[in-house]
């Protein structure tokens, strides 16, 4: 009903994991196949659900010259696949004080000038396992359109495959993070009720109510809880 791991399956396919052939279940993910082969992954697995970008993988398929990219936890094996995980993609994050930046093209120029090397080849977009329009947000970054970079890079999991494949050696995911922070810090619309609530809390507006609730017996509290209205 709720089993921790899938055991041996009937139908298998043959995949080459870093050059070594293994028979693995035909419906396995790449990560499942690597573990089925007996590897203890140290670098190359994180959330295992497609959020953390730890399991960037490169592979080729039989009779096909192309290099494909994917997340090992989200990509299924195919017969004849030859694959390797990428344990780490070298990239240097710029150091900055977000309080001293402005949400414009200067921030990009200062911290990630390689963006301007983009030749618009589209390799980054083709290599994104999330299906993001990576090249479009690099173009937006060149224009200083921080809001668009934020929007288009929102779902980036920072697996690093785009920057690994990029002929201009741009560090796209890092540009995305900078832009998201600039947007959140400077371009957001402020929420008036949030400011009011923070002020109320700081002013001790809820002290009396808290004291009452915290000293209430379990029965009284339960009564209050089940009688509360709901939005």
């Amino acid at each position, binding site marked *: 009903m709720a089993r921790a791991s899938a055991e041996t399956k009937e139908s298998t396919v043959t995949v080459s994991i870093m050059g070594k052939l293994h028979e693995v279940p035909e419906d396995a993910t790449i990560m499942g196949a690597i573990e089925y082969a007996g590897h203890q992954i140290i670098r190359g697995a994180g959330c295992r659900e497609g959020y953390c970008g730890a399991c960037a993988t490169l592979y080729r398929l039989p009779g096909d010259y192309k290099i494909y990219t994917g997340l090992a936890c989200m990509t299924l094996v195919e017969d004849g696949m030859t694959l390797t995980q990428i344990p780490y993609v070298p990239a240097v994050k710029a150091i900055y004080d977000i309080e001293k930046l402005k949400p414009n093209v200067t921030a990009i120029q200062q911290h990630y000038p390689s963006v301007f090397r983009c030749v618009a080849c589209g390799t980054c977009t083709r290599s994104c396992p999330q299906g993001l329009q990576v090249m479009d947000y690099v173009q937006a970054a060149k224009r200083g359109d921080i809001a668009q970079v934020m929007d288009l890079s929102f779902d980036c999991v920072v697996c690093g495959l785009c920057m690994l494949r990029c002929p201009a050696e741009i560090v796209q995911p890092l540009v995305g993070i900078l832009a998201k922070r600039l947007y959140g810090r400077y371009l957001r*619309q402020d*929420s008036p009720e949030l400011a009011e609530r923070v002020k109320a809390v700081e002013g001790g507006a809820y002290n009396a109510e808290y004291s009452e609730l915290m000293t209430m017996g379990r029965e009284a509290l339960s009564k209050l809880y089940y009688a509360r209205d709901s939005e």
Partner: protein
Amino acid sequence: MYPDYMAESLRKVVQTRPARLELARKPDPVYPPMNAEERRAVLEGFHPDFEASARRAVRVGPNKGEKLTTEVSELLESHSWLRSEQVNLDKPDFETDLLIVGGGGAGCNAALVAMKEHGVRSIIATKLRMGDANSMMSQGGMQAAVSRTDSPTRHYLDAIGGGHFENKPELVRALTEDGPGVVKWLEDLGVVWDKEKDGSMKTMHGGGTSRKRMLSCRDYTGAMIMRTLMDEVRNHPDMIAVKEFMPAVELIMDDKGRCAGAVLYDMESEEFFTVKAKSTLIATGGYGRLHIRGYDTTNHYGATGDGLVMAYRAGAKLMYMDSVQYHPTGVSFPEQIAGFLVTEAIRGAGGQPLNKDGELFVFPREPRDIEASAIIRECVQNGGGVPTPSGRVGVWLDSPLIDMLHGEGYTDKHFPAMYRQFIQYGIDITKLPMLIYPSLHYQNGGIEINERCETDLPGLYVAGEATGGLHGRNRLMGNSVLDYNVFGRRAGRYAGEYAKKVKLGKLSLTHLDAYEKELAGAGVKTDLVTPVLLPSYAPKDVKKRQLLRGGNTLPGASIINRLHNERSGA
């Protein structure tokens, strides 16, 4: 795609949908919520915690004699990797003000606050990469009482009722009262919250909320927060040293019984390093990868309860370690993503759980333990589940309702991660329901703390999922994201303050020898060596061949566990 034999059941879901859509459009609940008595009955009858073998008394340590989750008792009744005489503590390899064990949300918050408020330097030691944590994976959102119809005290009441009135009140107050401030702290760091057109926060319901209080960043809420915090941590390399693939394996104490750092283990070079620290924070998260009761888990790869066992050996008391959270909606089919999280926000947005006949059987937004138990009851007792080809079972979660309720494109915009996860297998969740079953999700209990994140041991602080008391025996959705932010920040504040004034004595690991003696005295016979660090997913026959050399038959034995057995003196 779903197998052909499910077509009949899927047809029934479509048939009942128009009537259910009508229900959803009305202000009343689509199904009657349970009262206290009904809640108790479904919990005791069907929650996995209440199964006969789910709990057993632990035989050693500060909670000796108390019934804990069986797997937790086993974890605690285990050997250390180290014996005191093997480690030279005279010249620590590293010294710092604050040692933070764990690079998730709580750890990063603590490092930033300790630095900003006290000018305190820290080391973040983490098992995998920084951000390889459940913090990263939260999809649906973070609770915080910011809207005008809501208040922090109402949030308090919801949280404490959801926890069956067993939560520590001072912790719930800290959580709910700090909530709005955390929203602002994160926003100023650059988190992009979902907003309405006028700039007010977009809010949604979660299970057990009486006001719409769930704030979100599409369905990448945890990822957005975590990446922002990590980026800020990386902006201060002179103040915060990050040591990745270097988990702590034991705490170091001083001769006055204060925590004074930890021994780290380098996953790659297999060396041990000692860190002397004026204060130490455990922010190691939970234990989903122990696969309690054989359940699949939503948790990240390193969630093996390492902090629990280290703190316990050093003498810290645990609270509510008899209580496990099963998320009501883990994936049941496709097999490849079985156990993965389906965000509760799907139900918050109007998704309905349905049995094989396409009928509602529970209010969609009960607190998690109630909802999960009701789903198990529907499958186990009422035969209302849909079996999967691999022998699992599940009920439907009718997601196509969401676009019908909120307009086409809503799912696309708000649940892109969910959509991606299923479309991979030919299931378009805007057109087809998902098949779900409860999945091991959260460690409700943990190391007991107060509102300053202090434990029984001076100098030892704990924050986030590793703690116990805040959520009682059941956490509500969105309160863990808030938890790691609120208590991560508090830990940074108070552990930082403490680090400024403490003068450490002579370092010691003798507590490990005392624990070994206690194990022997209690007649515990085990070959389990902990912290576990990583689970192993090698097939049984592979494991057997791997274990040949050490004679080690651990169920979850990793390479690292076997290394321990080969070492002289073990």
